[in-house]
C-alpha cells in the first residue's frame, strides 16, 4: 500500500535519425492516493499506456521522478515496486492449471506451500474461479483468463497498486457488464489502489472515483465523473466524455454578455478579460426545445430506445440534443434553449469562470 506520486514526468521514445524528439508525455504531475479507484482516460496515442508503464517500472521516464510514499522509485525494478498489471490481451501461463497460475507469483517470492494454499483459495473464491482451479488455464474463455491475470495480482499481499490496461478489449459485450461490476466490487472488497486505463468513457466513469483525462501527452483534467460531466475544464473533455459529446458553438462577448449566433445567452465571464472570441459549450442533455430561443432546423432524429438524439442546425452549426423517451419533438419552427446552469464558456479551449447576468 502506498501513495504514488509522479513528479515532473516527461518521456520521449528514441527518435529515429533526422527526426526531432517527440514527447509522448509532456510534463505530468499526478498523485494517486492510497486505496483509490482511478481511471486514466484518453484516445489512442495520448500517452496513457506510456504513463502506466512508467508507474510499473517497465519504462524509465526521460525526466522526472516516481515516488512511492515519498520514496524515489524511479530507478527501482518492476519486481521491487510491488505492483500488479492486467493487460489488454489475457496473459496466462498455458501449461499451468488455474491454481498454479494463481500461486505462481507467491512461489516466485519464496512463500511456503502451506501459506499459499489458503491465499489462492480465498482469491479464487472472490473471482468465482473455485470450480476451475484444477483446470488447465489455456482452456478458459477470455473473461476467465482475464480473471486469472487479475487474480495473480490480488493474491499477493504486498501489492501497492493494480493497473489495468484496457482489460475488457477482448471480452464480449454482454460479459463486459459482469466483469466491469466485478472489478468495482473487488475494489471495494480489497481496497487496493487501482488504475484503469481505457479509451472507453463508460468503463472509466463507472469504475473510477477519480478520472484522469489525457490528451496529446498531457493531463487535461482530473476529477470525479460528475465534475467531468458537468464542468469539463477543456473542450476536449467536453467532447470526449459524454455521448454524443458537448456541443461547441462560436460566441462573442458584447457588453459583458456572451452572445451566441446573435442571441444573448444570459451568462458572462466572471473576470473580464476583454477577449472577443469564445466558444460556448453545452451538453446535448442540457439543450431543450422551447417556444422561445434560437430558431433551428431539425436535421434528423435517431431513436435510441431509451432516448432520442435530435440533430438540429442553425446558421451552419450543428447541435445534438438528447430527448427523453416519450417526449415530443416539435416539427414546426423548433426553437432551442440552453440550461444556463450547465452552459460553459471556453477561451482557447480552456473553460473560464462564468456568472449569470440578466440582459
Amino acid at each position, binding site marked *: 500500500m502506498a501513495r504514488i506520486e509522479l513528479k515532473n514526468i516527461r518521456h520521449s521514445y528514441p527518435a529515429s535519425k533526422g527526426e526531432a524528439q517527440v514527447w509522448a508525455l509532456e510534463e505530468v504531475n499526478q498523485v494517486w492516493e492510497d486505496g483509490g479507484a482511478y481511471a486514466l482516460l484518453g484516445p489512442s496515442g495520448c500517452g496513457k499506456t506510456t504513463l502506466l508503464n512508467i508507474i510499473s517500472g517497465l519504462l524509465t521516464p526521460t525526466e522526472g521522478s516516481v515516488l512511492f510514499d515519498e520514496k524515489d522509485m524511479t530507478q527501482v*525494478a*518492476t519486481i521491487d515496486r510491488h505492483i500488479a*498489471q492486467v*493487460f489488454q490481451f489475457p*496473459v496466462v501461463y498455458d*501449461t499451468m492449471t488455474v491454481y498454479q497460475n494463481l500461486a*505462481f507469483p507467491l512461489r*516466485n*517470492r519464496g512463500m511456503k506451500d502451506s501459506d499459499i494454499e489458503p491465499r489462492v483459495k480465498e482469491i479464487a473464491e472472490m473471482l468465482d474461479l473455485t470450480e476451475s482451479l484444477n483446470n488447465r488455464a489455456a482452456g478458459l474463455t477470455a473473461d476467465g483468463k482475464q480473471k486469472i491475470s487479475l487474480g495473480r495480482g490480488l493474491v499477493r499481499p504486498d501489492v501497492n497498486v493494480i493497473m489495468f490496461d484496457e482489460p475488457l478489449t477482448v471480452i464480449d459485450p454482454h460479459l463486459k457488464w459482469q466483469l466491469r461490476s466485478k472489478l468495482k466490487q473487488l475494489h471495494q472488497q480489497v481496497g487496493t489502489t487501482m488504475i484503469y486505463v481505457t479509451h472507453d468513457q463508460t468503463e472509466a466513469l463507472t469504475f473510477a472515483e477519480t478520472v484522469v483525462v489525457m490528451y496529446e501527452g498531457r493531463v487535461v483534467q482530473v476529477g470525479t465523473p460528475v465534475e467531468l460531466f458537468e464542468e469539463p475544464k477543456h473542450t476536449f473533455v467536453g467532447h470526449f466524455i459524454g455521448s454524443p459529446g458537448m456541443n461547441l458553438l462560436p460566441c462573442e462577448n458584447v457588453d459583458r454578455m456572451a452572445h451566441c449566433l446573435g442571441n444573448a445567452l444570459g451568462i458572462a465571464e466572471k473576470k473580464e478579460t476583454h477577449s472577443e472570441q469564445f466558444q460556448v459549450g453545452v451538453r446535448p442533455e442540457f439543450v431543450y426545445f422551447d417556444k422561445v430561443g434560437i430558431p433551428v432546423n431539425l436535421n434528423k432524429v435517431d431513436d435510441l430506445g431509451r432516448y432520442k438524439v435530435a440533430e438540429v442546425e442553425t446558421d451552419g452549426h450543428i447541435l445534438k440534443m438528447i430527448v427523453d423517451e416519450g417526449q415530443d419533438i416539435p416539427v414546426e419552427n423548433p426553437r432551442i434553449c440552453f440550461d444556463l446552469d450547465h452552459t460553459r464558456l471556453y477561451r482557447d479551449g480552456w473553460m473560464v469562470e462564468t456568472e449569470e447576468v440578466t440582459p
Partner: protein
Amino acid sequence: MNKISNQRAWWLVVPVVVLVAFNALIPLMTVVNYSVQETFGNNLFFWHGVGWFEQVLTSERFHASLLRQLAFTGMILIIEVPLGIAVALCMPRKGPWVSVCLVLMALPLLIPWNVVGAMWNIFALPDIGLLGRMINGLGIDYNFTQQPVAAWSTTVLMDVWHWTSLVVLLTYAGLCSIPDAYYQAARIDGASSWSVFRYIQLPKLKRVLTIAILLRFMDSFMIYTEPFVLTGGGPGNTTTFLSIDLVKIALGQFDLGPAAAMSLIYFLMVLLVCWVFYTAMMRNEEQ
C-alpha cells in the same frame, strides 16, 4: 469449408502432377521393381519375392550402419536443439544488430553440402589444417583420417556448425512472435529467467521446435555428401551412415536388389517418423 468454386482451377495443378510423377513416382516404382527381382545383367530379371528384404533386415552390416546413423542423428539433435535455443535466446530482439546476427546465422546454411565437407576436410587435416594443427599443438593426438573418435567428433562438429543456424532461426522467429505483455507479466509476477523460459518461452516455442526437430531429424538421417567428402565413411566403416552404405552397395557393388530393398526400408523409416511427428503436431494444435 465448401467454398463456391469452379473446377477449372484443377488444370493449374497439372504441371506439378506431371513433374512429381517423373520426379518421384516413376523412380520409386523402379526401385520397387528392383527390390523384388534378381538380375544377372543383360536386362534379364527373375522374381525374387521378399528375399532381398529378409537379407537386408538380417544383415549385420545393415544393423551396424543403422545404429551408427541413429547414434549420429541422436547426437546432433541433442547438441543442435539446445544450442540453437540458447543462441536464439541470446540474440537481440531490436536494434541494428538484429540484421547482422541474422545474416551471420544464415551464412552456413547457404554453403553447398560438398563445399562444407571439403572445407572441413582441409580445416581439420592434422598436418596442414588450422583446426588439426591447433588440436595437435595442444598436445592432443588428433587425426580424423585414422582415429574413429576423431572422425566422429569432426563429423558431428561439422554438422553442428552447418545446421545449428536452422534451429536458431526458427526459434528466433518463434521468440519474436511472443507478445511483450507475457514478459512484462512475468516481470511483475517476479518470475526468474528460468521460469520465463520454462513457462512462457518453451510452451510458446513448442510448435516451431517440433518443426525444427523434424527437419533436423530428416536431414541428418539422410546425410550423405558432407561425411562422404570429409571421411569417405572411414576410417574403416566407422562413419559409414545409412546413405553412404546404400550407395556403396548400389554403385560400388552393383547389388541392385539388396540396394533397392534397403532404400525402401530406409524410405519407410523416414515416412514413419514423419507421420509420428505430424500426428503429434496435429494433436498439439487441437489442444
